[in-house]
């Protein structure tokens, strides 16, 4: 339970989200590419996860009591590394190595490379079934930690996601929280055109899950959703469907032709960082 006022909590987490966005843009600048659109869109969710909801020890990423966070969508690594830097798990200066040979921060997340990276994601649709196994294992050990599986809306196309959704409900996994980033962009275009998934909340509910669907860029709503997911007493898995805006916080990227992989020209990284700095300065 936080002792801050709601306004204070929101302001603190908004500051964390701003810094996560900023770290992601700096990594994008280093590499000249990266899924920065997703990072900007998902930063609020990651800020709440790592700076409010989850238990972990920054200096001991394998602490047995930690909440597990699985990055199923491995290409979100740029966003996730930014969150790990903000959470103190990775040193800030390491972002200079992002995507370089021999770096601990490869372009797609891999468990053996990065402290705090629980799984090798990227083969989409694998995080949730792994999370089912980890949640079963934690329950068998009597460990009260949560397993968070973070995934993209494209992964809703994968059959394994729904195998796991059935399995989690069947086994009553109240220690499993699934986070879905719905930005409606896949490799071949808008998710709704590639493979329609609506009515999504109804689908998850029909599979036996406790479902919340919120604006993933509304800090108050994101905080409330995490709090409700953790507080639920029923033995059922929980899913939070976050509608997010790719490029959030940088208007020229928000407005750019929507694409799975947003094009950013070399000079635009600094522009994006300047815009983030200005708007956060104004918010303070």
């Amino acid at each position: 339970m936080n002792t801050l006022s709601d306004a204070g909590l929101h302001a603190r987490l908004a500051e964390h989200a701003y810094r996560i966005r900023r770290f992601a843009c700096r990594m994008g600048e280093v590499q000249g590419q990266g899924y920065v659109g997703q990072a900007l869109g998902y930063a609020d969710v990651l800020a709440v996860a790592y700076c409010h909801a989850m238990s972990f020890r920054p200096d001991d990423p394998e602490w047995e009591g930690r909440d597990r966070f699985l990055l199923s969508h491995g290409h979100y690594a740029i966003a996730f590394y930014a969150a790990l830097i903000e959470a103190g798990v990775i040193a800030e200066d390491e972002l200079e190595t992002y995507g370089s040979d021999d770096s601990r921060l490869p372009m797609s997340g891999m468990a053996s490379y990065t402290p705090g990276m629980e799984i090798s994601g990227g083969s989409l649709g694998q995080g949730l079934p792994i999370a089912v196994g980890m949640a079963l294992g934690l329950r068998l050990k009597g460990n009260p930690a949560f397993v968070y599986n973070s995934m993209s809306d494209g992964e809703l196309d994968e059959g394994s996601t729904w195998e796991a959704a059935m399995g989690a409900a069947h086994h009553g996994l109240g220690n499993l929280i699934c986070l879905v980033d719905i930005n409606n962009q896949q490799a071949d275009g808008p998710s709704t055109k590639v493979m329609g998934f609506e009515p999504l909340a109804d689908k998850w509910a029909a599979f036996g899950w406790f479902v919340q669907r919120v604006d993933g860029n509304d800090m108050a709503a994101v905080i409330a959703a995490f709090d409700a997911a953790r507080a639920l007493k029923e033995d059922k898995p929980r899913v939070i469907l976050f509608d997010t805006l790719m490029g959030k916080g940088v208007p020229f990227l928000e407005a750019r032709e929507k694409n799975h992989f947003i094009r950013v020209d070399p000079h635009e990284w600094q522009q994006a960082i300047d815009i983030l700095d200005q708007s956060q300065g104004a918010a303070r």
Partner: protein
Amino acid sequence: MSTATAKKPRLTTSAMIASIAGEGQRITAAPFGKALVALAEQRPEIVGLTADLSKYTDLHLFGQAFPERFFQMGMAEQLLMAAAGGMAKEGFMPFATTYAVFGTRRAFDFVHQVIAEENLNVKMCCALPGLTTGYGPSHQAAEDLALMRAIPGMTVVDPCDALDIEQAVPAIAEHKGPVYMRLLRGNVPLVLDEYDYKFELGKARMLRGGRDVLLISSGLMTMRSLEVATALEADQVDVAVLHVPTIKPLDTATILAEASRSGRLVVVAENHTKVGGLGEAVATALLTAGITPQFRQIALPDAFLDAGALPTLHDRYGISTEAMAKTLKTWLA
């Protein structure tokens, strides 16, 4: 048993899970299930997972003995393998069972990425390996060894009989890392107890010597090879049998030592497609070492196999004892 199944006018497709034991052959019932229960008494980290096939892989014995450590994953093999990986990440040693076709073909990327890429301690024990059902390609895992061999760090085991399975279970548990083991379930033939045999992971074992032919085999083909060797004694053909229960890592030292003894025809016999299994593994080892004996393969063809009765199919594809003996004599003529 109903009268309809009792009187068979001619050979019909065997039951899906029919025993491969021959008429009058000595058998042990459910050696895998029994060995796992015995081991799990000592090792509380062992858990069992299955994809709606516990009874058909003998894992139900584990489920009865340790209900709190048994997890039903439903008919969902991707979930089975990924959840097994997840439990391994939490410190458990999952034994995951299904049929070989589903464990390898259906769940391949989950075995590759979730389990093997992180070197997780999951033991995949899969029934109906190679051609051990007459239900056609949907259930015939003719290429399971090729698929599993291709995964870095995967240990691949193809036991011959009940004794092999019984001894392999604690051995694969002792090995830290992913293992794919072919499973014979139900009434499993007992053969190797007559050969002063002991299963050792990664080791091939000479079961009998012979001057004319060296049969290198794994799985149930070792049983067939021993039968062939006995049968050919009447024809004054002296057949040696080298059993290779671990397909990967391959015991190249023993294979090379035996194959380099001059004057013997080297034949690899496997219950697997000739593509990518023990035969090709042995051939690569021999050529790499510069050893070039006369070399032949007894294996399933590179084809989708027929449905039918197992004895019919084993004859048709040359892996029955009679067919093997005939083939060997042709090669020796």
